[in-house]
């Protein structure tokens, strides 16, 4: 028995060693990181699909620097710990750059490792401002930030909706709580915040907190969080007779929200980027994505542009050196599906166009 075990062990070690030796030096590796499993797995899939699409286009044209591009996709399960171990795995495998992560609570810890290893990181969806306040020269984001988003939402509430009382809840995550704080800070002081508190993510029943909110009689409530919770919140709010509208952020912008909530989702306000269907340069991307994967997710187009930014930088600088790539990306405006993207000294986009959307007849409609 022992002999057999020994044999099996040595065979497996051999297999591992030969695997290393076989590794192809003639590819350029880039990573796609996001929640590929768990309740936010759809977001991970959206991200991966877009990166895959961009990589396939480049490879069809002969790759970059005469080499094919190999895409490694990894799962952080929306968990900060797994995000860090995934970052280390990518670094050990020698990726040139990473597109991701999706969640703020994953991107922020992972960014430190990419920074130390000199790997370029471009996130298509992380909106927590802290990510780019760490003075990491290799970290970029192609979407907006929560303080910008919070300000847009607060301005809309203060000027257009003009409630007397408002309740604010969040899901305690880096993203949700951050957004709620920025929103609260930017809110006109004429509006009274009658409730401010957190909820438990993945919990099924939010009626207790909703009842407490209803008791304070707000004219509106704000939620900082992601669509699975938002869907249950609006549905249960209607059940207990809390009929005032919800206003929330980009994390809720997904059809699943409407599917979970049914007609209870009607009238919900959401801050999100401009409708890609209204951006002329986005048309080719949308057609290609639809043909291959079906309807694009909220951040698909951002992930696509992020990938192209990275690959263009490699081609133009003719290097895979992280510092040189980061320097090139920070200095050179990029013309992509979203229009022209240029970065400020932090690595944020110079123009973050958040607009307001509303759920109307089971669809998201851009209202201004």
């Amino acid at each position, binding site marked *: 028995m022992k002999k057999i075990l020994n044999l099996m062990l040595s065979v497996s070690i051999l297999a591992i060693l030969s695997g290393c030796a076989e590794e192809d030096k003639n590819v350029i590796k880039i990573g796609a990181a996001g929640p590929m*499993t*768990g*309740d936010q*797995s*759809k977001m991970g899939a959206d991200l991966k699909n877009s990166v895959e699409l961009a990589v396939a286009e480049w490879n069809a044209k002969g790759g970059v620097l005469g080499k094919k591009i190999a895409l490694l996709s990894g799962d952080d399960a929306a968990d900060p710990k797994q995000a860090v171990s995934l970052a280390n795995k990518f670094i050990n495998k020698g990726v040139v750059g990473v597109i991701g992560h999706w969640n703020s609570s994953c991107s922020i810890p992972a960014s430190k490792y990419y920074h130390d290893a000199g790997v370029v990181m471009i996130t298509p969806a992380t909106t927590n401002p802290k990510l780019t306040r760490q003075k990491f020269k290799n970290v970029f984001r192609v979407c907006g930030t929560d303080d910008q988003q919070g300000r847009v939402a607060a301005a809309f509430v203060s000027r257009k909706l003009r409630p007397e009382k408002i309740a604010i*809840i969040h899901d*305690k995550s880096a993203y949700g709580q951050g957004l709620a704080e920025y929103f609260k800070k930017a809110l006109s002081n004429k509006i009274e915040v009658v409730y401010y*508190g*957190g*909820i*438990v993510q*993945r*919990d*099924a*029943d939010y*009626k*207790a*907190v909703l*009842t*407490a909110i*209803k*008791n304070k009689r707000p004219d509106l409530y704000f939620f900082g969080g992601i669509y*699975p919770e938002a*869907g*249950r919140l609006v*549905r*249960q709010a*209607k*059940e*207990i*007779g809390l009929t005032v509208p919800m206003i929330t952020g980009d994390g809720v912008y997904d059809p*699943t929200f409407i*599917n*979970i909530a*049914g*007609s*209870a989702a009607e009238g919900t306000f959401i801050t999100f980027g401009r409708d890609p269907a209204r951006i002329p340069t986005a048309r080719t991307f949308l057609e290609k994505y639809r043909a291959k994967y079906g309807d694009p997710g909220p951040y698909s187009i951002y992930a696509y542009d992020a990938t192209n930014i990275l690959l263009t930088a490699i081609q133009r600088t003719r290097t895979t050196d992280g510092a040189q790539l980061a320097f090139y990306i920070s200095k050179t405006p990029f013309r992509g599906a979203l229009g022209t993207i240029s970065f400020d000294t932090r690595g944020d986009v110079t123009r973050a166009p958040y607009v307001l959307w509303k759920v109307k007849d089971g669809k998201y409609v851009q209202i201004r």
Partner: protein
Amino acid sequence: MFTQQLINGLALGAVYALIALGYTMVYGILQLINFAHGEIYMLGAYVGIIVLGMLTAVGLPAYSLALTIFITLTISMLFSAAYGATVERVAYKPLRQASRLAPLISAVGMSIILQNIIMIMQGKQYRFLPPIIAFEGFSLFGAKVSPVEIFILSASILLMILLQLFITSTKMGKAMRATSQDRVMAGLVGININKVISVTFMIGSALAAVAGVMVTLYYGVVHFFMGYTIGLKAFTAAVLGGIGSIPGAMLGGFIIGLIENFGASYVSSVYKDAFAFLVLIITLILRPNGIFGQKAVDKV
């Protein structure tokens, strides 16, 4: 506000109570904490959402809502009962003579296996069901009561009464009580122990399936991981009521539901999950046998 929280708590408590019954019945007969029970509930919810989805596709809910729910409940109960009995055959029966720790570990293993089977078969994302029952409730003492809540409360109370009648006045119920008092003696006087144990698992699983279908109708989403937390809370309810005691599990379920709701609304919604487990710790310190629990007598 108080009335509303009372109603929310009772509806949630009814779900906990139904699941807690499965824990307590199995414990009563086998002195085993069936940690895979939360997964049976999850399975019931999945069967529920699939059947409801199919019935909605053929347009039955518009024709008769009651019939839709009845068909869904029946299929889900049958399926889960079969699953529960099979789990017992596969994971617990071979270990019946082993030390008490062995079946417990087997139960934990079964729980992980069931979760992963569903994860692989049904995917990792949320499955949702668009609301088929109107959610606008009617007012009662300043609170809103939705039709689903009425259904949950009345159906679970009806099931509890039926279960109590079954235990106290049928031959099978008598056999179950005898088995829980002394398994060996019950076998000696001619009771088919294996059958009693199978029936116990079936009933417990069917009740969990009802809870699963109710939650599907109530919240509209299912997830392969949903049985974990709720299973622990129902277990807490069973311990609070006195594990092994059927009225105890019912009462315990309602108490946990109410404590959670009042705690979340008057103290802090962030620590909602903590309240149930705080109750577990306090119970174990102050009254280890629970409310209706009997002090264990050492069998000589």
